[in-house]
């Protein structure tokens, strides 16, 4: 399975510019089976402008990705702000080669600062694809204290968890200092090793210019982790889109049902 991970530059409150940029980069992904894009790439994570201007899914924004998926005969996974009658959701989509949305996940483990912006997701699901079973979650859904989400996807048979993200750091961080250390690696390792699966996450890059995290920034360093550890890592930068290409075989997540509970020894990860 060949994935192009696009660490997309996301400018707050600029959905047209962001989506145009994403489409341009998808056009440059020639050999990929699947393109993975970041969380809420339309308005940027928690930007207040999304409150009134978000679009339903399917809708104007998701349709553009469905069209290019079909035209390029490629799978696309991305994050958008979803407008619904009950409020906005922080949503991830998986679009197949025919341009159809085959899986939708609404973020569950919302940070407290997200509460004014998004509703909490209500379900988890995996989908059978030509590559194997794929599960979706979003950014903090993979916090170490919320691995119940990844565990549930694994219990449903996910062989890969795709996770659009917007990892944020202080504006004072400079190159050469990996601010994440074990923050993402630890839960990804936990899920990948315990369940024999792959966790692939891409984060946006850019400066957060609105909302509760204004002044923080996103610096890339997207991460793909398998049962044997890190498969690939994006570079650190905060101002330009970068494509990271990864090629791997999906491992077989062979544990089922109660075998999973028996297999996992939470203590050893503490």
């Amino acid at each position, binding site marked *: 399975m060949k994935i192009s991970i696009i660490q997309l530059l996301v400018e707050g409150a600029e959905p047209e510019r962001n989506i145009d940029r994403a489409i341009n980069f998808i056009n440059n992904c020639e050999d990929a089976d699947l393109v993975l894009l970041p969380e809420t790439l339309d308005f940027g994570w928690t930007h207040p402008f999304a409150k009134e201007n978000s679009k339903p899914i399917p809708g104007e924004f998701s349709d553009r990705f469905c069209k290019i998926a079909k035209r390029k005969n490629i799978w696309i996974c991305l994050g958008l702000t979803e407008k619904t009658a009950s409020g906005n959701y922080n949503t991830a989509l998986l679009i197949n080669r025919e341009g159809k949305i085959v899986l939708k996940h609404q973020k569950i483990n919302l940070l407290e600062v997200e509460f004014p912006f998004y509703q909490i997701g209500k379900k988890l699901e995996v989908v059978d694809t030509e590559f194997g079973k794929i599960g979706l979650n979003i950014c903090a859904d993979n916090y170490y204290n919320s691995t119940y989400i990844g565990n549930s996807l694994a219990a449903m048979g996910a062989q890969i968890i795709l996770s659009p993200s917007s990892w944020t750091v202080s504006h004072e961080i400079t190159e*050469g200092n990996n601010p994440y250390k074990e923050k993402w690696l630890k839960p990804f390792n936990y899920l990948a090793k315990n369940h024999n699966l792959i966790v692939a996450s891409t984060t946006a890059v850019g400066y957060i210019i609105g909302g509760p995290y204004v002044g923080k920034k996103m610096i890339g360093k997207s991460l793909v982790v398998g049962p044997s550890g890190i498969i690939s890592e994006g570079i650190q930068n905060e101002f330009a889109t970068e494509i990271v290409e990864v090629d791997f075989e999906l491992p077989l997540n062979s544990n089922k049902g109660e075998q999973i509970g028996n297999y996992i020894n939470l203590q050893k990860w503490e």
Partner: protein
Amino acid sequence: MGVIVNGVETKKQLKRCKRCISDTSCPGIKFDQYGICNFCYLHDKWAKLYPNNLEGQHVIDKLVKQIKKNKNLNNKYDCVIGISGGRDSSYLLYLAVKKYGLNPLAVHFNDGFDNPVAGENMLNAIKILKVDLRTITSNYLESRDLKIAFLKASTPDLNQGTDVGIAAACYGVAYEENIKTILFGQSFRTEGIKPVSWAYMEGDYLKGVHDLFGEIKLKKATKERPNYQLSPYQLFYYSVIKGIKAFSPLYYESYIRKDVDSVLKDELKWVYPGAHYYDDLYWSLITYVHRKKFNIDFRLNSYSALIRDAQMTREEALERVKTKYILEDQKIIDLCLRRLQISKEDFEHWIALPPKTFRDYPNGYAKMKFAKPLIWLLGKAGFFPEIVYDKYFNCGY
């Protein structure tokens, strides 16, 4: 009938230099008996001071040797180079690595208005040239507050925060890494000469305006991170006490824009951001305010430079300035307003305020005037380009 400048007909009869296209919209412009302006004479003076022929190459060779000699033995880097992804700094980075054989530490100052095209240029350049990058990111609340403060202050130097921030970031990183040389990618041969009231820049002035119009307190600076605080005293500290010297090697280079573009495209996958200064999206808004409020068109300065350097004909320049500058893009102006979180009404209200200059606000100019002989001496001694003296004291008013 008046003349058309920046797509707008002005009723004023502007007197224009017979050699370049600078006119009486430029504060402090004077003409000799042949109708040639003082900025043309200044350009010629600088062209002699910084020859871009074989003699200039010898100066560069000497400079490179000096940079390597000054380098701390244990230091990985020869110099700091400020980069933005625009033409000038990208070319300087290219020359520094490929021609001068230096190992620079590239420094980028991000205050939230980077043009994404320029961002990709920077990423390509550092990857291809295998150069380390240090990005100094401002506190966005501060950079936003400063931009709004200068709109309220009603002065033309609307990007004061960014300009001070870039210089401060370079000096701060040089101090932090114990690097003794900073290279800046400027060229008077393409950028032109601006009168001091359009281009005045220093930390005391920034503070003076911010104290009056800012709404949040600026974070305390450190020597490693001066942020927006680069007063004449601090410059003196970095330059003289710490011995960090600044140079502009492009002054000595044959800098033909078309040729440079072709080198950058071929060698660094560089893409033209669309206009001069457009490595920074905020320049779209600035260009609009300049035209509407101050009757300033920076193309007069840059095209004049290109005419003096025989890179553009006077006729072509005059034809070009008849239309509005492409940099003024309504979509990007709206983006800037959204990013600043200000309404169009507030913005237009501030534009309607009477125009002012740095002289209307507390600034460090008196200190600089007091230190005029010292600045001249430090320029001669190579602590910073000699041109700096002229920029503050001989460039109009």
